[in-house]
C-alpha cells in the first residue's frame, strides 16, 4: 500500500496544500528525501504565486492529483549540499523554478532544453522518477538535484527575484529564441499581468520600443510611468487598433483567456512573429490568410531550459530587473488566489514563506 505523504520520505516537511478542486489551501504535513550526493537542500524564503498554481489547485487542466502543494517560483538559502556538488555552498542565495528533473539523455536535454524533455519532472504535482509525487515551494524547504538549482545574483532582492523563475524565463526564452533582441524594433505585449510586465521590462532593457496591448485603460498610467512602456494600445478601441496595423515586429501574447488572434496578427509587420505563452483552455481561431499574406508566424513557448534560466537571471542582475510584487503571508494565500482570478494584483503575489509559514 502506498505510504502517506508524511511517511514516504525520511525528512519531515511542512507546507500548504489544496486537497480538492475547491482549490482552497491549508496546512499540510508531508516529507522530503534525504539530501543525496547530487542534491542541494534550500530553506525556502519566498515563493511566487503563478497563475498555473491557481489552475492546478482547481484542477482546471484535469491533471491534478490531490493533495497538491503548488509553487514553482521559489528562492532561498542553501542549507546542505551533496558530495558531488561543486557549484553551490551553504549560505548561497538560490532558486528553483518549474522543473526539478529530466531524463538528461534526449536531444532536448542534451541541448539544455530540459523544459521540452518529454520526461521532465515538474516541481509540483508530477511523478518523480522514484514514483513519489513532487511537492512545490509553498513549503519550508526543498531538496533538488543540483542541475536544477539556479544562482540568484547577489545584487537582486530575493523576494522580487522569485517570479523570475517562471514568469521571467517564460517571456525571456521566446524573446531570445525568436530573435526579439534588435534595438529599435517594436515589441507588442498583450496582457499586463505577471508575464506581461516582465516582458515590458525585458523589452526595454533590450532597447526595444514596447507597446502594451490591453483590453482596458485601467493599467495605462502604470504601464507607461512605472514599467517604462512606450505606448499603450487599448484592444477594444477599433480606431486605435486600425492605426497600429502593420507596426510591430513581434508580439508576446500572455493572455490566458480565449481571445481573437486576428487583430493581433494584423498589428504585425511582414515576417512578424506572434508568440503565445498564455494557455487558453479552448482552441483559438486561426484564419490562414492572416499568416500567409505577411509571412507571419504563431509560435508557442514553454518556460525555459536551465542554462537559459541562469542566463536570464544574470541578465536581470546586470540590468537590475526584478518583478513588481505584493508580499503576502502564507495564511493570506486563499484571498490572494481569489484576487489573482480577477487579475487584481500588480503584478505578482510572493509568499513570505520564511516569516509566515508556521505550524
Amino acid at each position, binding site marked *: 500500500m502506498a505510504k502517506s505523504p508524511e511517511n514516504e520520505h525520511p525528512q519531515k516537511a511542512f507546507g500548504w496544500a489544496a486537497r480538492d478542486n475547491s482549490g482552497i489551501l491549508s496546512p499540510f504535513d508531508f516529507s522530503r528525501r534525504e539530501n543525496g550526493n547530487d542534491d542541494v537542500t534550500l530553506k525556502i524564503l519566498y515563493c511566487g504565486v503563478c497563475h498555473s498554481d491557481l489552475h492546478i489547485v482547481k484542477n482546471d487542466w484535469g491533471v491534478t492529483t490531490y493533495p497538491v502543494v503548488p509553487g514553482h517560483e521559489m528562492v532561498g538559502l542553501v542549507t546542505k549540499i551533496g558530495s558531488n556538488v561543486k557549484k553551490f555552498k551553504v549560505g548561497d542565495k538560490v532558486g528553483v523554478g518549474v522543473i526539478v528533473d529530466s531524463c538528461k539523455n534526449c536531444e532536448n536535454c542534451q541541448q539544455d532544453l530540459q523544459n521540452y524533455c518529454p520526461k521532465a519532472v515538474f516541481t509540483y504535482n508530477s511523478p518523480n522518477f522514484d514514483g513519489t509525487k513532487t511537492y512545490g515551494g509553498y513549503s519550508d524547504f526543498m531538496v533538488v538535484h543540483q542541475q536544477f538549482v539556479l544562482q540568484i545574483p547577489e545584487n537582486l532582492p530575493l523576494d522580487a527575484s522569485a517570479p523570475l523563475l517562471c514568469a521571467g524565463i517564460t517571456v525571456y526564452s521566446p524573446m531570445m529564441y525568436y530573435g526579439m533582441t534588435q534595438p529599435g524594433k517594436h515589441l507588442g505585449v498583450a496582457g499586463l499581468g505577471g508575464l506581461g510586465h516582465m516582458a515590458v521590462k525585458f523589452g526595454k532593457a533590450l532597447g526595444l520600443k514596447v507597446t502594451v496591448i490591453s483590453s482596458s485603460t485601467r493599467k495605462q498610467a502604470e504601464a507607461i510611468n512605472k514599467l517604462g512602456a512606450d505606448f499603450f494600445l487599448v484592444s477594444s478601441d477599433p480606431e486605435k487598433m486600425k492605426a497600429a496595423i502593420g507596426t510591430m515586429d513581434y508580439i508576446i501574447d500572455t493572455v490566458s483567456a480565449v481571445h481573437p488572434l486576428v487583430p493581433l496578427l494584423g498589428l504585425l509587420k511582414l515576417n512578424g512573429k506572434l508568440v*503565445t505563452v498564455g494557455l487558453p483552455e479552448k*482552441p*483559438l481561431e486561426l484564419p*490562414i490568410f492572416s*499568416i*500567409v499574406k505577411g509571412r507571419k*508566424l*504563431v509560435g*508557442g513557448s514553454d518556460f525555459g531550459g536551465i542554462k537559459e534560466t541562469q542566463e536570464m537571471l544574470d541578465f536581470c542582475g546586470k540590468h537590475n530587473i526584478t518583478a513588481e510584487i505584493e508580499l503576502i503571508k502564507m495564511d493570506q494565500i486563499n484571498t490572494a488566489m481569489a484576487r489573482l482570478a480577477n487579475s487584481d494584483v500588480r503584478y505578482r503575489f510572493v509568499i513570505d514563506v520564511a516569516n509566515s509559514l508556521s505550524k
Partner: protein
Amino acid sequence: MAAQPELEHPRKAFGWAARDSSGILSPFKFSRRETGEKDVTFKVLYCGVCHSDLHMVKNEWGNSIYPVVPGHEIVGVVTEVGSKVTKFKVGDKVGVGCMVNSCRSCQNCADNLENYCPKSILTYGVKNVDGTITYGGYSDSMIADEHFIVRIPDSLPLDAAAPLLCAGITVFSPLRYFQLDKPGLNVGVVGLGGLGHMAVKFAKAFGAKVTVISTSPNKKEEATGRLGADSFIVSRDQEQMRAAMGTLDGIIDTVSAVHPLLPLLSLLKSHGKLVMVGAPEKPLELLVFPLLMGRKLVAGSCIGGMKETQEMIDFAAKHDIKPDIEVIPMDYINTAMERLLKADVKYRFVIDIGNTLKESS
C-alpha cells in the same frame, strides 16, 4: 465610360477569358500596351493552370473583375524590349509569374520581397496603376517591366518550366526561409498536387528525408516511386499518424481545404515548423497547448520575390528538377478546370498556347 478591352490599349491581343462566375472560358479579344522603355514583350508559348486560376474564374474569393483572362505561370520568347532594358534581348526564353509590378520603394520591395508589397500588382484580375485591368497568360502575348521577368535557362524545357513560376516558388521560398533546406532534415509535405509534388522534388534536392501526408492511399506508389519521397502516410490512418508522431522537423502544408491542424502539429518534433502555403477559406482551429509544449510554430508563406524566383529557376535547372505536367490544347481548358477541381491531374496542366491558341477558333 470604361474603354472596351479591345480598345483600351494600342496593341491587339487575343486570349481566353471567363465572363462570369460559371467560370467557363471562351475566346476573348483585348489589347495590351506598347512596349515601354523598361518593358519586355514576349510571345507566350506555354501557360500553367494554377488552382488559383480556378478560384478566380469562379469568383470564389469574391474579388474577380470580369472578364478574367487567367494565367500566372507564363513562358515564351522575347519579341521586343524597351530602350532601357538591359537584362533581356529578343529571342530570350523568359517567364512571368504572379506579379507584374510593385511600388519599388517600400521596405519589402527594397528587400526583394515584392510579393509582400502592399501595392503589388497581380498578373491578372486586378487594377493596374493606369486603371486598366491586368490580363494573364492564357493569351498570345505578354508584357511586363523587366524587373518582373525571369530568364528560363536553356536546359529547362519551356513547357515544364511554366509551373515553376507559381507552384515552384510557392514551396521553394518557405523551404529556404524557414531553413527546411538543410541536408538530413525530416520534411513532411501535406497534399500531393501541383504545389505538393514540387515540394517533394525540391526537398529531396536539398537532401531532406521526405514524408508525404495525403488523404489518398492510391498516391503512395507514385509518391515513393517516381517522385522519390521516402515515406507516405495516409492522414486518416490513426496508426500511421501515431507511428510518425514527433518525427518531422518541418511540414509544408499545401492543402487549401479546411482541415485539422492538430494531427499535423503532432507529427512535428519539438521546435518544429508547420508552414501553410494553401489558404483555406475558413479559419482553422489552433490548440495552443501543443504549440507551447513543443515550442512549435505555424507560419504562412505567399509565393516569392523576384530575386528568389530567379534563384529557384536556376536551382531547378541545375538539379534537373521539372514539374510533372499534362500539356493540353487551349480549347481543352474547361474540361481541364473540371478535372482540376477533382484533383485529377498529375500534377499540373500546361496549355500549349503557341500551337493551339488560334484567333479563328
